[in-house]
C-alpha cells in the first residue's frame, strides 16, 4: 500500500534550553541518531535544530507507517535514523510569503534521510527555514511523485488550522485534477483520506500543523490510477 507522511515544526516555539537537555533529547534521538549529528553534513546545524529535524523525520515516518499499521503508536526511539545527507551547500533562508507548494524536491537543496522501523526502510526529504522544519517520508528513494505544500496560518486554534490546511490542499488538488470532485474524509482508523464522489481514492495524503505553520503531502504519479471506479487520468505539471 502506498502511503505518505509529513511533519512541520515551528522553530519559534521550540524550547531551546530544554531541547539541549539530555533528559529531553534522549527521548527523541537514540545514541546512534545522536552520533549522526557529528558526521559531516550536519555539523553546521545548531544541535537543537538537529533534534527537531530528527523529530520531524520520525513523526513523518510514523504517519507513513500508521496507514499500513493503524494500531502503531508513535515512539520516536523505535524509529531509527540511518543517515541524513546534504547534496550541496545549505544556506538557511527565511520562509517568505504565505505559502509554498511544489512537487518533488528538485528545486530545494533538501536534507536526504533514511529511516528504519523494524524491517521497513523509508526515505525522507527535509527543508529547513529559519522559521520552520518540514519533512516528508516516502517508501521510494525518488520523490518525483510527492506533492507538498507549506502555509503560514493566521490562527492557533487546532480545528481552524486543520480546516485551513485542508482548504490549502483542496485548492491544489482541484487545480491538478479539475475533473474530479475531491473532498477529504477519514478512514475507520482516523487517517485522512481523499474522496471522489464520496469514494476513497488511492491517493495517500498527510497533514501537519504546528503553531503558525501547516503542511500537506500527497502522492500522485504522472499516470494516476484510482483504485475504485476512477478512470486513469493524466495531468500536466
Amino acid at each position, binding site marked *: 500500500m502506498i502511503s505518505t507522511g509529513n511533519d512541520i515544526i515551528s522553530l519559534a516555539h521550540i524550547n531551546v534550553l530544554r531541547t539541549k537537555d539530555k533528559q529531553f533529547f534522549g527521548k*527523541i534521538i537514540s545514541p546512534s541518531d545522536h552520533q549522526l549529528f557529528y558526521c559531516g553534513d550536519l555539523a553546521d546545524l545548531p544541535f537543537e535544530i538537529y533534534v527537531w529535524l530528527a*523529530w520531524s523525520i520520525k513523526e513523518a515516518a510514523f504517519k507513513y507507517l500508521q496507514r499500513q499499521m493503524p494500531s502503531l*503508536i*508513535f*515512539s520516536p526511539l523505535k524509529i531509527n535514523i540511518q543517515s541524513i545527507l546534504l547534496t550541496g551547500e545549505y544556506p538557511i533562508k527565511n520562509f517568505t510569503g504565505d505559502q509554498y507548494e511544489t512537487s518533488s524536491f528538485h528545486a530545494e537543496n533538501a536534507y536526504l534521510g533514511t529511516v528504519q522501523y523494524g524491517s521497513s526502510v523509508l526515505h525522507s526529504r527535509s527543508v529547513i527555514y529559519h522559521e520552520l522544519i518540514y519533512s516528508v517520508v516516502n517508501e521510494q528513494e525518488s520523490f518525483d511523485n510527492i506533492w507538498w505544500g507549506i502555509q503560514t496560518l493566521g490562527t492557533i486554534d487546532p*480545528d481552524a488550522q486543520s480546516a485551513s490546511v485542508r482548504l490549502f490542499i483542496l485548492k491544489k488538488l482541484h487545480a491538478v485534477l479539475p475533473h474530479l470532485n475531491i473532498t477529504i474524509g477519514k478512514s475507520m482508523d482516523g487517517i485522512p483520506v481523499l474522496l471522489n464522489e464520496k469514494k476513497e481514492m488511492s491517493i495517500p495524503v498527510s497533514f501537519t500543523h504546528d503553531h503558525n505553520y501547516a503542511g500537506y503531502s500527497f502522492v500522485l504519479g504522472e499516470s494516476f490510477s484510482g483504485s475504485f471506479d476512477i478512470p486513469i487520468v493524466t495531468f500536466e505539471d
Partner: protein
Amino acid sequence: MDKLTILDELKKVLAPYTTNKEALGSINDQTDLIKDLKINSANIIDIIIDAETKYGIEIDPDSAEKMSNVGSCIDVIMEKMNQKE
C-alpha cells in the same frame, strides 16, 4: 499518593500544553491527550519530562507509549512511583 491527587496535579501539568481549557476542566480517565485536549504530539515529551521531574521518576519509552490518555498517564506515574518506593 492516591489517584485523585495525581489527577488533580496532572491537570496542572497538562494546562500549559492545551488550548482546550474546557476539556481540561472535565477530564477523566478516557480523555485522550491528542484528540480531546488537542495537545501537539511534540508536547507529549514535555509532559513526560514534567511528570518525571514532579514525581522524581523515570519514564522509559515502553511506558511513554502507553501515555495516550489521562487514565494511562496516571497508571504509568503510579507504577513508576511504586517502583521507586
